[in-house]
């Protein structure tokens, strides 16, 4: 059990990349890119987890601050990562919509404008 979380993180990253390589639709490529990125969420939060301690928030049920809590930094990094994922996904979806307008198709294998 000790390494299962890290292995799932690597598995999700590679699954996402596999999705990109086999995709037949640019929208699906962008979706698989965000799946690949969620591999990094799992790795970061697994690194920050500590067995049997509460989250580092002392306000909801007001509790005396203690340092036996899970790591706040990985959660801040994952928050930033989720924002980056959402925004880059939105940008790439907008580009994919434009590719469909100009090329009439979203199948990456039929796009031949940039060969050679």
């Amino acid at each position, binding site marked *: 059990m000790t390494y299962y979380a890290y292995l799932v993180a690597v598995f999700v990253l590679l699954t996402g990349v596999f999705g990109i390589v086999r995709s037949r639709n640019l929208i699906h490529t962008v979706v698989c890119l965000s799946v690949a990125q969620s591999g990094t969420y799992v790795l970061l939060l697994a690194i920050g987890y500590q067995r049997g301690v509460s989250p580092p928030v002392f306000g909801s049920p*007001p509790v005396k601050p203690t340092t036996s809590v899970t790591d706040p930094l990985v959660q801040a990094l994952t928050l930033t990562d989720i924002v980056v994922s959402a925004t880059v996904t939105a940008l790439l979806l*907008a580009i994919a919509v434009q590719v469909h307008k100009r090329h009439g198709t979203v199948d990456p294998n039929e796009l031949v404008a940039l060969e050679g």
Partner: protein
Amino acid sequence: MSRTARLMMFVVAGGAVGVMLVLGVLDLPHFGSSFHPYRDAAVPAAVAHATSNVISSVNFDLRGLDTLGEETILLTSVLGVAALLRPAEDEEERKPRRAGSLLDMTRLFGYVFLPLTLAIGFITVAHGALTPGGGFQGGVVLGTGIHLLYVAGSYHAIEKVRPVEALEYGESLGAGAFACFGIAGALVSASFLGNILPWGTFGELFSSGSVLFLSCAVGVEVASGVIVLLAQFLHQAIEVESHVEAGKA
């Protein structure tokens, strides 16, 4: 490269990368271990600035520059989407057909939950320094909440409520306020993005000084950014008809 050749290359390369990463991951400290030196330093630092939610303290106080970069990425992407989905010469708008039939229950659901979601959004932003949540999460809830009007009412209803241009002000106001606060902190107390506002007492609503201010700035920016983003995609999906495609389809 043919599709099968590409998949073969990926299977070989992906497998080797997987082996490399797994070997690397096996040297990590055990899952759930208590080795977290940064947490041992961050919790006292957050408590020193009277911030109960240590994650918001890390986000807006200890590592404020990361969050400035993150909000600028959000601003850049919304700007990029607006630039990329701007009407091209060979496109014209067409008014969407009458909306389809709508269950009364969905209409009720929409109108009941709309004020509720907006309230939750405001609370999440305001209590960013106390309870889980903060500027970003609250902004997301606010941004999506307004679209319940689209679920309950119709596309016209939502178009009236969210003037896209006014929301660009909200977005640039939020990101600009964050950056200006950083510069002000640097000029006033020689500390860029330093926590120079009064910290208040631990556990109260108006505690944690600049964390609350920056959290609200981010809330405003994220809410308007999300609405402008969804407005662009809704506009593309519903209103714009491109001659290129019309000709081809």
